[in-house]
């Protein structure tokens, strides 16, 4: 771990000023990802700007009936916030599916969006990795890739974005508020994370000199018919092999609107609005769900160890939509079988 400078900005403007002044500076919030990366010699910031005490911890209702969540709200607090639990239970559920209590207590809302991939080679500096060392090659494509992506991959990188929370935020069509030297801007959630393409070293469209200040949730929370299903090798404290956030608006037994995002399968939470649209007006039946799942995974492609994810994702989508339609969301805490 290198010697680094440490500073604590007084306000957001100061934080932006500091990060813009030093291209080798990095923010630290909960530290649950950046510190590990520093210990592994993956990240080598010369300057850590500790934003954890900035006043970005509010969870407030917005004028348009939505909510605004400060970038430093801990994941635990957010998932147990009464308004989030009541109006956006899919978000509460997805957060609780992630990591462990201890990590969720430390992890921040903004940091969760910016956590880096869990590709095994990304963390091992002795191996080639285009994301860590651009141009060095991708060890995962022909290596151990059980956890890697099946959708939206490139020849340069097949990493996934590991967040659970972000899968729910994708379905809810959240907005990301950021501030930079040029002022504030808002990024739609679907535009926030990128596909790897030829530049896998860039995970998101956030500029290096910008700070996330808040996440805004639109009014619609799909609190009635939703589920977040996370399929993993153990029942807690494991990253998703495949996860599905499904949200439905039903009219009787007919689907009025369907939203669907997949986690653990791509470089970003994976949505396909065309496929979702095909469900509109359809009966909420297994047949409808199955054809949507097939369409959603039509272009999916495995790399060996992760071939199974294609079929697993298909089945998980059907199961998630079925549970959402029945109003029997997945529990994230019950050990008993649900």
């Amino acid at each position, binding site marked *: *771990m*290198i*010697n680094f400078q440490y500073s604590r900005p007084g306000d957001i403007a100061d934080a932006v000023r500091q990060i813009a002044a030093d291209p080798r500076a990095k923010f630290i919030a909960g530290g649950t990802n950046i510190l590990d990366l520093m*210990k592994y*010699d993956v990240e080598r910031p010369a300057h850590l700007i500790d934003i954890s005490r900035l006043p970005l911890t509010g969870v407030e209702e917005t004028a348009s009936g939505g909510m605004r969540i400060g970038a430093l709200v801990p994941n635990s607090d957010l998932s147990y916030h009464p308004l989030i639990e009541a109006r956006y239970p899919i978000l509460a559920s997805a957060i609780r599916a992630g990591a*462990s209590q201890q990590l969720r207590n430390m992890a921040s809302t903004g940091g969760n969006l910016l956590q880096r991939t*869990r590709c*095994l*080679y990304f963390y*091992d*500096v*002795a*191996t080639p990795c285009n994301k860590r060392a651009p141009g060095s090659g991708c*060890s995962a494509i*022909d*290596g*151990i890739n*059980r956890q890697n992506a099946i959708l939206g991959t490139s020849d340069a990188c097949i990493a996934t974005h590991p967040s659970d929370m972000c899968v729910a935020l994708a379905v809810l069509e959240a907005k990301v508020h950021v501030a930079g030297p040029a002022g504030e801007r808002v990024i739609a959630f679907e535009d926030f994370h990128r596909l790897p393409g030829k530049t896998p070293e860039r995970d998101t469209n956030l500029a290096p000199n910008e700070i996330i200040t808040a996440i805004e949730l639109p009014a619609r929370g799909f609190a009635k018919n939703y589920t977040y*299903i996370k*399929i*993993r*090798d*153990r*029942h*807690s*404290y*494991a*990253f998703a*092999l495949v996860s599905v956030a499904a949200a439905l608006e039903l009219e009787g037994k007919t689907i009025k609107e369907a939203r669907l995002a997949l986690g653990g399968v791509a470089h970003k939470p994976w949505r396909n609005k065309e496929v979702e649209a095909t469900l509109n007006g359809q009966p909420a039946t297994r047949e409808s769900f199955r054809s949507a799942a097939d369409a959603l995974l039509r272009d999916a492609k495995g790399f060996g160890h992760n071939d*199974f994810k294609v*079929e*697993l994702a298909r*089945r*998980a989508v*059907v*199961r998630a939509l079925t549970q959402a339609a029945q109003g029997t969301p997945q529990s994230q805490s019950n*050990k*008993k*079988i649900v």
Partner: protein
Amino acid sequence: MSVEAPAATGNMGEPHPRFDARLKVTGGARYASDMPVDNPAYAYLVTSAIARGRIVSINLGEAQNVPGVLHIMTHENTSKDVKDSKLFSDGGFSGTSIIPLQSDKVWHDGQIVAVVVAETYEAAREAGYRVKIEYEAEQPSATFESNGVQVQAAADVKKTHEDPKVGDFDGAFASAEVKVDATYFTPTQHHNPIELFTTTCAWAGDKLTVYEPSQTMYGMKNGIASQLGIEPEQVRVVSNFVGGAFGSKGSLTPRTALTAIAARRVGRPVKLVATRQQGFTIATYRAETKQRVRLGASRDGKLTALSHEGWEVTSRPDNYMVAGTDATTRMYDVANVQSKVSIVHADRNTPGFMRSPPELPYMFGLESAIDELAYALDIDPIELRRKNDTMKEPIKGLPYTSRSVMQCFDEGAKSFGWSKREPKPGSMRDGDWLVGLGCAMSCYPTQMAPSSARVRLSQNGELRVETASHEIGNGAYTVIGQIAAERLGVPYEKVSVVLGDSDYPAAPVSGGSITTASVCNCVAEACDAIRAELGINDPKGDVLAALKSRGRGAIERYAEWTPKGVPDGALAKLYSGQAMPTGGTKDKERIMFAFGAEFIEVRVHQRTREIRVPRIVGAFAAGRIVNPRTARSQLMGGLIWGVSSALHEATEIDKRAARYVNKDLAEYLVPVNADIDQLEVFMIPEEDHEVNPLGIKGIGELGNVGTNAAVANAVYHATGKRIRDLPIRLETLLA
């Protein structure tokens, strides 16, 4: 959640709470790396990026410029400092013959190639990353089926190895009415004790103190002396608590000598705490196995033929093997048996003991095959085992000193509700979940080794026991104290036990589940000597009163205990670090094992195929249980680890580079609390007066044997899919 202590029934001792429980949960227990030393420097290991080849050049420029760096060891300046050391399996102390920094050669991935010593841990680590090494790499062989591996028959490389056989397997198998012929695989696993591999070395003149978590105080003392070319008397080893070992701390790793050399060079104590990742390659592991099991039986379920062949991976230079056929050929009554073990040399670090080293992988093969046979015969798997139960092992016809395996099956089955099981695969369901019930036999050889201990009773009623045994989570402090208290009729609260220091009388390595049986018998002997001297032969007689009435301040006795069948000179060997265990299958007249029956319920989602384990029941019979509370913990931990070995645990190897890739606890999975729901442990009272005077069998490793097979058998029952390759993951059930 709190659970009542299990009641003591039959010949069991009291369920005293663990002596060290409070210390551990309050942080009061000091582990080796917590021990204060004066002005320490910190070491960081640099490990190889390749698995085979040689170091062409090392550039230390950048590393030496990191502020605080004191010294960097490489093969260029250390090659003569480590005197060679013999392997543990050849009567030496080392877990590997690969001693790093002796030459430019790289034997395996993650081999130590440099040691940085600095004023702080952070500086040492930073400099470690800045050490630039150029390699000349060759294509490594990773595992079975890799190009370039070398296969050898165990019998050809190890004089003492026997491949048990009896009768005419080929003939009996050829004519068997019903047959099973299946191949099984178990994966690479790493111990991953929570306490990392640490070493602190402090010299005072030519005397060295080593603080290192270890399962072998005297092995370490003698081993490090021979590696450094000094006298054992110059070395003291201290490790009052060990934060998990599971075999990984039972033999010497190269880090100890390197740390001692570093401390000598910088002229102050050096502390090394290897990282979790480095723990995968600087110590040992459980190697992957491949096994072929063939069973032949008559239509009515009598076994007529059994063949068990095993292949195990090892390193290039070392012939490490576990050879579990020693046990698996002796579990059932079968007249025609053959077996063979082979080792497969690859470019890997040397494997080593890991909880139930032979039994865990090999009983998976046997107990899966027995379940397959039960289906082929359409007989209940418990009844099949009953039909082939035996009180003498089939190879030499030696009698079991005791064997209560069917009692375990019957008690366990009753509590588990086995009778409600619908035998047909896929026939039990609960909503979207397929339900499967499976069982398997557990076994572990009962072994003991010579030990020594000192017991002192003072007139104020205090009783002190000293022995260089080990608290590795096994409850050693507690059970040793308990036996002494019981034997002298002193309240348990008045006993103090000191362990984990090579200044105390020698005790054997805490491996092979021998500690309780060996040390407790020895302590009992010392206590009896105290009684004899005071003339109190009635076990109810008041020893303390006798002590006082004779006007004595204290009485102290040192005892040396040797189990039956140990060759002369065993105690001298013990003091020079050798354990000499006996029992199990080593005895010439009888065979000694503890047994158990394990029951697992699995649920498999009918669509997405996740596997859950809502229920675990284990019933065990292991001679006299000294403390049912600590015993239950051991067995419970074993069962949970058994589930882990079935469903979670595997070290992934990138075969291109022979490199482990999931080297941390986020990616190397073991069960978390959420994975384990109902768990019941039964201890069946069993008296065995032959194994040793106190009638104790070891239980440390019994719990995790067979569980993997019970899970696989349950998964078959739920889904109709026989999984012969561990761990069982949902993808194999998706197809």
